[in-house]
């Protein structure tokens, strides 16, 4: 079923896409640094390396998808 809602017409400026991507990377980097610090500083028992791997693998895939899409948009 399609409701026929029209998405507004937008133009994709490479500069805006790059700025949004960099802002997201900055937020992600800061957040991850704080979280890793907490895991290392306050761990009770041991935070499994598996959790760290899952977090960074998942994030890596999503960032790669964003970067690839952003690149295609900018071309």
């Amino acid at each position, binding site marked *: 079923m399609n*409701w*026929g809602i029209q998405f507004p*017409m937008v133009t*994709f400026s490479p500069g805006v896409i790059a700025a949004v991507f960099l802002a997201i990377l900055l937020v992600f980097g800061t957040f991850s640094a704080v*979280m890793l610090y907490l895991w290392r*500083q306050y761990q*009770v028992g041991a935070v499994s390396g598996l959790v760290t791997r899952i977090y960074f693998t998942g994030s890596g895939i999503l960032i790669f998808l*964003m970067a690839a*899409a952003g690149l295609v948009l900018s071309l």
Partner: protein
Amino acid sequence: MIELHRDEHVIGLYRRHWLVMVQQAVPLLLLMAFPFLALFYITFPQVSGIVPFTVFAISGWALFLWMTFFGLWTGYYLDVLVLTNERIIDIEQHTFFHREISECRLEQIQDVTVESHGLFAHFFRYGNLNIQTAGESLKFSVNFLPNPEKVKHELSRLHLEMAHRTHTVEEEGVPA
């Protein structure tokens, strides 16, 4: 990190029930489904770059939810009740930069209560553990604790052991 005293060892680490984490993850899963539902119900204009833009937006949204999930997991993981052979340490991680640690010696415990409310609590065997201590009327409350009766028994056992040890030392007296 917790600094343990000499001859002190950790008996158990208790976190909230895993169902708490599931409960927090379900809304995130629903939010993740939202853009895919939108793809079905919204007609996108046939402009060049709409597909990569959609991939970019959905990946960004997924990354935000992914980070939120791990932020919640951090709170869940670092919120812990540590039971040692000498004391109880209750660590509460409210937010990333708001941490509260309270502790009491086992001999200070006056009363331990276990509460279990509702169908889920009985089915999944979790409940609240309330520890009333002497002195400044400090009260520890741990909610959604798995097998709270087991923890209560462990506490009672350690409390008795501690009382027995103290009594024995008093009877033997301190050498001059």
